[in-house]
Structure formats: C-alpha cells, structure tokens
C-alpha cells in the first residue's frame, strides 16, 4: 500500500481514491480526483494551471530545493526489518515534517516580505505627500503631529430652532 502523488496537482492520492491511467507506452498517470483527470484529458499543462504544485514550484511561489526533500526518496531495495530503525524513522518523520513546513512557511513569508516592505514604504510616502489633502499646511505648521483636525461648525441660534424638527 503506497500513497501516490497525483500527476496533475501533486497532492497525495490515498488508497481507494482517484483514477490511474496507463498509456500505451506503459507510463502510469495517477489522479486524485476527477477534476485533475478531466484537466488531463483536456490536455492542459499543469505547469500553466495556477492552483497546481507544479506551477507554484516553477514560478517560485513554493520552496523548491531543500535538504528535507532528500529524506523522502523512493527506495527500491528492501531493507531488513529492524525495530529500532523503524522507531527512529517514525520519530524522525515527524521532526522532518515540522522542519520542512517551517521552512516552507518561512520561504513564503520572505517572499511576501518584500511586498510588505514595499507597501509600507509606499504608505509612508503617501502619508508624507498626501497629508495636505486632509490637513492644511498651516494647521500642520501649528500642530506637527498627525492628528486630523476635528470638524468645527459655528451654528447660530436661529438655525438650531429651525433644524429641530428636522433632527427628530
């Protein structure tokens, strides 16, 4: 029993799910669900379809090269069973998984950091440049903090009496 990878989206195919297609040249294509299968039949290239892992890796959205990927490799030679080894392997899998996911999220964070920084810079610049839209330079000169001035309206008594029915 093995968990396979979907050919189209690279997600894991659990036993009992999906479809396997064997071509005449004996190449096997496994799909996790009919969505991927139908896309394949439409001859779409997964590298161009935004939501697949192939696209994300190709366009640098996800981590491509890392030493944690070296741990998971399909081995063709069977190893003799060793309980200690099995124990260690199971424990190691969890740790490796954690490290890998941390690194992946770091990678994404780093990738998004430049955007964030840029947005911050832009924001600051806009703040600096556009402050005159909300606060007059004179007011700025008097009060250099960025508190926005409150709207002060002098209303006469007569107008108040007139407006009372409206306020109801």
């Amino acid at each position, binding site marked *: 029993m093995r968990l396979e990878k979907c050919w189209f989206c690279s997600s894991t195919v659990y036993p009992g799910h999906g479809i396997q297609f064997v071509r005449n040249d004996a190449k096997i294509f496994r799909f996790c669900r009919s969505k991927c299968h139908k896309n394949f039949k439409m001859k779409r290239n997964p590298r161009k379809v935004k939501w697949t892992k192939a696209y994300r890796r190709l366009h640098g959205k996800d981590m491509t090269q890392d030493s944690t990927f070296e741990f998971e490799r399909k081995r063709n030679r069977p190893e003799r*069973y060793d309980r200690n080894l099995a124990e260690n392997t199971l424990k*190691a899998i969890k740790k490796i998984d954690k490290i890998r996911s941390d690194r992946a999220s770091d990678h994404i964070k780093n990738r998004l950091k430049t955007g964030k920084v840029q947005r911050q810079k832009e924001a600051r610049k806009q703040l600096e440049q556009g402050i005159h839209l909300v606060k007059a330079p004179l007011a700025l000169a008097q009060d250099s903090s960025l508190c926005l001035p409150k709207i002060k309206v002098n209303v006469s008594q007569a107008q108040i009496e007139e407006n009372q029915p409206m306020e109801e």
Partner: protein
Amino acid sequence: MVQYNFKKITVVPNGKDFIDIILSRTQRQTPTVVHKGYAISRLRQFYMRKVKYTQQNFHEKLSTISDEFPCLDDIQSILWNLISKIAKDYVKLLKYGDLLCRCKSLKVAALGRMCTVIKRIGPSLAYLEQIRQHMARLPSIDPNTRTMLICGYPNVGKSSFMNKITRADVDVQPYAFTTKSLFVGHTDYKYLRYQVIDTPGILDRPFEDRNIIEMCSITALAHLRAAVLFFLDISGSCGYSISQQAALFHSIKSLFMNKPLIIVCNKTDLQPLDGISEADRKLVMEMKGEAMKTVIGVLLIMSTVTEDGVIAVKNAACERLLNQRVELKMKSKKINDCLNRFCVALPKPRDQKERPACIPQAVLETKAKQAAEKEKRKTEKDLEDENGGAGVYSASLRKNYILSNNEWKEDIMPEILDGHNVYDFIDPDILLRLEELEHEEELSPEEQEALAEIRKKKSLLIQQHRMKKSTAESWPVVPKKFDMDRKFLTERMGRQLSCLGLDPSLAINRARNKSRGRKRERSVDRRVGDDGDAMDIDDNQASKKFRLRSTSRSRSRSRPPSEVVPGEGLKDSAQKVKTIKLAKKSVLKRNKNARRGEADRVIPTLKPKHLFSGKRSIGKTQRQ
C-alpha cells in the same frame, strides 16, 4: 498361421454392384473406339482383349475376397473355374469372327454369361458381407500371446475386476448377463503385455442347454491357451450360493487342463473368507484342492470395491502364466535356435574371496537418518490439519524470517504516517542526517554568545586594520623592536592565551628562554617603577647582574644566516640557504628598478619626452 485382421477385410459387394464394378472397369481400362474398316485381326484382338480383361478382373476380385476371409478356398475355385471356362470358349469363337457385328455380339454374350454366374451367387455374396460386418465388430484377440481368461457365475465381479486392471470400460450392472460377449483389455506385467478377456457369466447347466452367450465363454475356455481366473462370490450377493458355484466349477474343470488356474474369492468386503459357514468352507477347500492338483493353482481373496488384493491377484496370474509359457518354450525344439543367441556374461572369479558392494558407513548412517527424519518431520500441511483445516488455520508466514532479534517477528510496522510513506524514509543513518538537519536550523544560545564574541573581536580587528590602512602613508612608523605600544610582553601574551583557553606558562617559559639579551635602557625602564634610586652604583651593579641573570638566561650572540631557528618551518640549513637565495633573487630585479615592493607599479612619467620626440629612422611616428 496367418494373422487375420478382421477389421481390415474389404467390403464384399453384392451381386449387382459386383457386375457394375467389373463392367465399368472393363469399359474404362480397355480401348473403346473401333471402326468396321479396321483389319479383321485388329477387330478380333479388340474384342478378345475385352473378354479376357473381364475374366481377369473377376478372378482378381474373387481371389481377394477368398484371401481375406478365413476359410473360403473351395468356393472361390469353383467360381473361378466357371468363369474361366466361359472366357476360354468365347475367345475361341472370337478367333474365327469375320465381321465387326459378329465379334461384338460374341463379346456381349461372353460378358453376359459371366455376369449371370455372378448374379446367381448374389445371395451368397450378401451373406459374406454380413459375416464380414459381424467379424469386424469382434474384439481382436491374438490367440498366441499371453492371455488371461476371467470366468465364473454371472454378477460375481468379473467385469469390475476387468475395469480395475485394464483400461477397458465394461458395463457393470446389477442384473445378470450384462456382459453379452467377450471383451478384451490389456494390462502390463514385468514389461510384457497381457490380454485379459472378460467372458459372460456361465450357469450350471448341461452342455446342450446352454445359450449362445454362455457358449461364447465355453468356447473361449476351450480354445484359448490362457491362464484362467475362476471367480467366486463369497458373500452370495450375486444371487447364487457357494454350493452352486462350486458345482459349476466341478463341471467345467475339465476345460482347465494344463492351464494355470487361480480361484479368486471376490467381494470379501461384504463377507470375509473366515466368516463363511462350515459347509461352504469345505466346498471352497475342495475347490482349492482341485486347483492345487492342476499345473499350478492357488486361492486368493480380494475385493474390487476396496481394491484390496486386486493387484495381488493380477500379479499372481501373470506370474504363473509367464512361468508356464517359459517352461513350455524351454522344452520345445525351437528353443535351441534361440538358445545360442542368449549369453549371460559373468566375470570369471579370480579367487574365492567375496567382494560385496562397498558403501561407506557415513552414507548408510545418513540414509537411515534421512529416512527417520522424513517420517518424523512435521510438515506445514500436518500443522494445518491439526489446527482445524484449510479454512480455519492460516499459516504464519513470518515464522522463518531472519531478523537480528527474534522478538520482532510479529511486529507490525506502519506503512503510512501523516501523508508520507514510511518506507521512503527508512535509512540506516537517518538519525545522523536528522542531526545535521537540525544543525542547519537556528543556533543555540551558547552558539549565539560565541557568535557575538567572534563578531565583536572581528570588528575590532577590522577597525584597527582600517585605522592602519588609512594612516599607512602618513603615520610615522616606529620599528617594532622599540615596542612603543608595549605589545610584545610575555604577560600580554599570557593574558591573551588564557582568554583563548590555553595554559600560557609553557609558552612564557619558552619565550623567556629563547629571547636575546636586552639593551640596558630597556631594562632600566622596567625598573623605574620599583624604587627611585636606580642610579645607586652598588645597587646598580648588583641589580644589573641579577637582572642580567634573571631576565636573559642566554648569552646574546648573533646568528649566522644559515642557522635554522626552530619555528621558522625549515628543514635544515641547506634549505634555509636556498630559501634566502630565492628570496634575494625575487627582490633583485625590483630593487634594480627602484621599486618599493611588489605592488609598486608606479610609472613616474607616463610620456617621457625622449621617447615621444624626434624623427624615425624606420617606421612611422604614429607607432613608436
């Protein structure tokens, strides 16, 4: 004696067909065209040929029939005579025929008479055909080969026995006279083929009253030279008692002359031989006695249902028959022809010493052990049967696994964990690699501390270097030997080494040992701090001596240039001399060019006037 194969007899045609065949053949095989203008001799020859040809054909066909049928000689000759007489007569007449039409009518008459003869024997031919058909259906019994004959009352088990020992598939039914004719089967014994003939049952009746079916068996018994197996039904389930069967035996025992006889007691599963009544037992013993009196006779018991003793009976019968036949052959005259062809060669014994086969003791032992083991060893199948059979017990396939620790044999290892295949991760040094991986991750606090220290120190060095670099050209350099910064003190060295974690005492001692003598000013400077009266003479002298002794422990002396100082990294003085020479050589050229060092590439004047002015003797001024 000619071997007759009844199945291969040609079909005997009936009268009309016979005539048709002969006449059409004549018409086809002889020339057909004749004209009345031909020479008379030719005409005569033509018609004579036809007559003769017809006669010959008749003769041929009749002789084939008579040859193939076992005993038909005289009939055939009579016919032949008739036909040949007719042919002869008409040939004679034809010799004197003068016209075509006359010859033709003669020929017609001849053929007509021959055909009449055949027409008259038409019914006989039909009868012959019937016989032929019947004979073809008979089983082919070779009367000369080894034969076993099975006889007895109806329903005793003769056909069942037949079915058991041969591949014949005889009908076995509960009613009497199931077998209505002879059946032949074949069986093997000692690489020889035996014919086994199954007969219909015989009833105990006087000879004249027997019906055709019974006569079959009687005739077979009478004429075939075979071993006889007389079947006896002990249990009486055939419907006839033992006394009746015994009576039959006695009445036909005359037919068993000179034949190996075996009395077979069948159906012992229903009634064992010991369980029969006293009277019956007497009868059986009587029969046995009779059997013993003949050539070679014996009584055997068997049961076709349980297959108990069937093989024994067959073997006994075959053995006896074989022996009898061999004996007879030996006694006959023909053996002498064959005898000189046989020769069993035995090596001539050299002496009386016995030389048995030599098998080493070890081999015998292992053979015995193997045999014992084979019986004692418990197979997986036995285990399965013990534990409830095929559906209940499932064999433990892990029993014979070879593992480092036998406790792990029944371990179940998970194949999938958290969306990964565990088998893909298995690696003997996974722990090592995991450690390395964790190293790649964040540093521990001590590591961070150390890193901070390193960075601090590094930055200090860089700062110093930068300061030196920037002031390199303008800073006045005091030669190192004056040590204005007080950098080259052993205490300083000691402090630095202990900061790094080393024990400085050895190094300090060595430095002090190997150091040269110091100048007086230096030593004076040192002592300034202690007391103010450095100029006291007595003190000075004593202190000088003390100082000299204490501070420099070795005499100052200049070193020759080829002396190897340990710590320089040179092997011996020769190497040192060579290095000095190389160093000087590399420097010579530069010095001659008044260069300050390696990196000095300054060109004082880029365009010296004396090179860029004046006329050329050859070449252009553009290029100089």
